[in-house]
Each structure stands twice: as structure tokens, then as C-alpha cells.
């Protein structure tokens, strides 16, 4: 009877090796995608943030065009926001009858694809 009791106590205190392996496997299966998605979403949050900054810079660039008389296509300029350099560029095309199509593009760092782009038409004062 005593021996049986000891054996029962031992069974309650520990996990069989197989049980440990199964637990680790389950944890790995669950945690891996969680960590993956977590990391990916953190990147997306950063992307949204960058896109929002770019949009605001594009709006600012567009306001420079809308305010005052438009005589020539503005030069590109750089801005530093949160230790990143942003480039705001203008593209102008003559639509005839003194109308100019102006496209404002915002690039982050040396990226070749714009993060934000806005387009409008303004009158040329010339």
C-alpha cells in the first residue's frame, strides 16, 4: 500500500517526456504565426505612418502651388521629418489655354516610388 502511494505521488508531480514535447510543439505552432503577424503589423503601422507624413507633405507642396500666381513649375525641395529625409517634387505639363497640370510627388529617402501623389490644374499667370 505504501509503495503504491509513492508511485501515485510521483505521477502527479511530473510530465512525461512525450507530454513536454507535445506542449512545446503546440506552443511553437501557435507562437510562430503570432510573432510573424505581430512583426508584420508593426511594419504596416510604420508604413501607414510614413504614408500619412507623405500625404501631409504632398498637401503642403500643393498649397505652395495654389497660393499666389503660378508662373513656372516649382523646384523640388527636401524636408526632414522624424530624422528621415523626404523629397517633394513637381511635374508640370502644359494643357494649352494657359492651364498647367501640376503633379506633386513625395519620396522617402532615395526611394524611386512616390509614397504620395496629388494632381491638380492651375492657371498660368504668363
Amino acid at each position, binding site marked *: 500500500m505504501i509503495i503504491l502511494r509513492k508511485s501515485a505521488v510521483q505521477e502527479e508531480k511530473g510530465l512525461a517526456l512525450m507530454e513536454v514535447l507535445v506542449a512545446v510543439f503546440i506552443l511553437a505552432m501557435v507562437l510562430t504565426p503570432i510573432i510573424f503577424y505581430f512583426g508584420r*503589423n508593426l511594419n*504596416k*503601422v510604420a508604413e*501607414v*505612418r510614413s504614408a500619412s507624413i507623405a*500625404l501631409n507633405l504632398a498637401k503642403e507642396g500643393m498649397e505652395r502651388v495654389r497660393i499666389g500666381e503660378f508662373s513656372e513649375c516649382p523646384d523640388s525641395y527636401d524636408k526632414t521629418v522624424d530624422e528621415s529625409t523626404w523629397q517633394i517634387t513637381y511635374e508640370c505639363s502644359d494643357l494649352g489655354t494657359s492651364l498647367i497640370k501640376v503633379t506633386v510627388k513625395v519620396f522617402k529617402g532615395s526611394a524611386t516610388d512616390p509614397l504620395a501623389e*496629388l*494632381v491638380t490644374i492651375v*492657371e498660368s499667370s504668363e
Partner: protein
Amino acid sequence: MIVVIIALLTLIGGLVLLTSTGYKSYHFSKNRAQALYLAEAGISRAIREIKDNEDHDEDGGVGSISEILLTYSDGSLAGSYSVECVLGGSSYTLTSSGIVNKGSENEVERKVSAKYSVPGGGEGIEEFRHIASYKTSCSQCLIDLGAYETSNMPIPDMDFFRDNADYIHESGFTSEEDELTGVYYIQGDAKLRKGTTLKGTIVVDGGKLTVEKECEIDPSESPDSYKRDFPAIVVYGGTGEVTIKKGIEENETEIHGLVYASDSVQTNKHCSIEGVIIADEIEVDEDNKIESEEVSPPGFLGGTPLGGGTVTLVPGSWQELSQ
């Protein structure tokens, strides 16, 4: 263990939701900004039509714009804009609509309205009927063919013409010579006899002007270079009438420049006008050759609302109509 996993899943779910909302919010903000700039693009186009007094988009009205698409630099569609134009008193009210993602559930529309005044108008100005005829060839279809009608008749600056006159006649004038040059300022009635050539401008203050057959008026031949863009004829006050008599086929009467009459302009057969007619009433013969020139001659108070004329935003009139 299970509690930890549920907590992590909740965290990741929240993060996904947050990111998704962030993306939606960004796209909505971007589309709203783009829709506003599309609406502004419409205003720019409408103003250009009004300044040029020309229906550039051929939608049947000066100042109104039927739907036009605008693309980004890579050719993808940014959206569309359209403008309604209402003329009231001395100003145009433009209502421009910019739309992004038209027809989809993500459609964003912004409408802006602004009032633009044209020169010569303003508070206290009596209602006039002002017609500038462009490329019109018959009296019956004057309006249909692009005549421009507004309540703000331009007012000539008679002091300007008097100050720049080469000859001043204070009690009427009838041409005696075949060739005249310079700016003639006449008080009372004036007549250019048959075959008279005027290399300059004739201004009649408080009377009427009669132009007989085979005459030619051409301010661009004026000896003073700065007077070469003057109007050809200005008749203001008094009866304010211009009558161009019937010409002959072999040698028609030719007017090269703007013809202004505060009352009426009447032309007859074999007459060619290379310029704009501005008058309260215009009656031109259907055989007349009338062509516009996109000019804005000097000598009008506030300029003329013709080609190159100024159109200015009425301060405080810009407003957004819908969010």
C-alpha cells in the same frame, strides 16, 4: 498557457484591426485631398473659359465644365471634375465638384463654390445687356453661335481716349479726306464718307457714327505704336449708335478691331469686322464676315471681360458645400 495564448491572439487581433483602420483612414484622407484639388482644377478651367470667353470643352456654355477626367503621371485615374456656372449681376458663381473613385463604395466627392467678379460690374451699376459677338455671321443666330451676354457692359474711359487723341472735334465731324491717321475724338455725331481709310481709332462722345461704303478702319496701322491695339470704334453716350452702311461686293467695308457702341451696332451687306462687337443691341447682316480677335484693348474702365481680361475672386466667397 492558454491564457497567454489568448492574450497574444487578442493583441495581434487588435493590432491587425488598428493597422487596417489606419490604412482606411489614410486612403480616405488621400482621396479627400485629391477630390478637393480636382474641384479646384475645375475652377481653374472654368475661369480660363470666362477669361477667354470661349467654350473650350465645348459643353455648350462658357464657364461650365462637363465631366473631365484627370490622371496621375503614371496614367492611373486620379478622379474627375465638373463645374456649374451661374451668371448673376456682375459676377459668376462657380460650383465645382471633384470626385474620386466614382461609382464605387469608396467614392469621395467634394464641392466648392466661389464667386468671381468681372470688370466693369459692381454695386450700383445699372443692368445692361452686353453682347460681345464672336465668330458670328448672322443676327438671328448671334446668341447660338457663341455671343456672350452679361449684365456688366464695359464702360469706356473717355478721358483716356481724349488724352490720347490726335484730333479733337467738339461739334461733330464729317471726313473730308480719303485717308486719316491717328485717334479722332469727336463730340456729337460723326460720319466717315465713302472710301475713307482711317489708320487709327474713331471715338464718338455723345453722338452716333455713320460709316459709309468702302471705308476701312484699322488701328493697327496707327503711326503711334502704342495706339495699335486700341479699339477701332468707340461710341459712348448720346444716341450711342454705330451704323455701317451697305458696301459693295468688290470693295467691302473693313473694320480691323473692336467695335463698341453703348447703344447699338448695325451693319449691312458687304462689311467685314475683324474684331469683337460690344453693344446693347447688335444687328449684323447675315452675309457679314465677323471674326474675333483675342484681344483686350485699353481704354475701358477695369478692362474688358474679353480675352485676357481679369476675373477676380470675390473675397470671402470661397466655400466648401459638402464634406
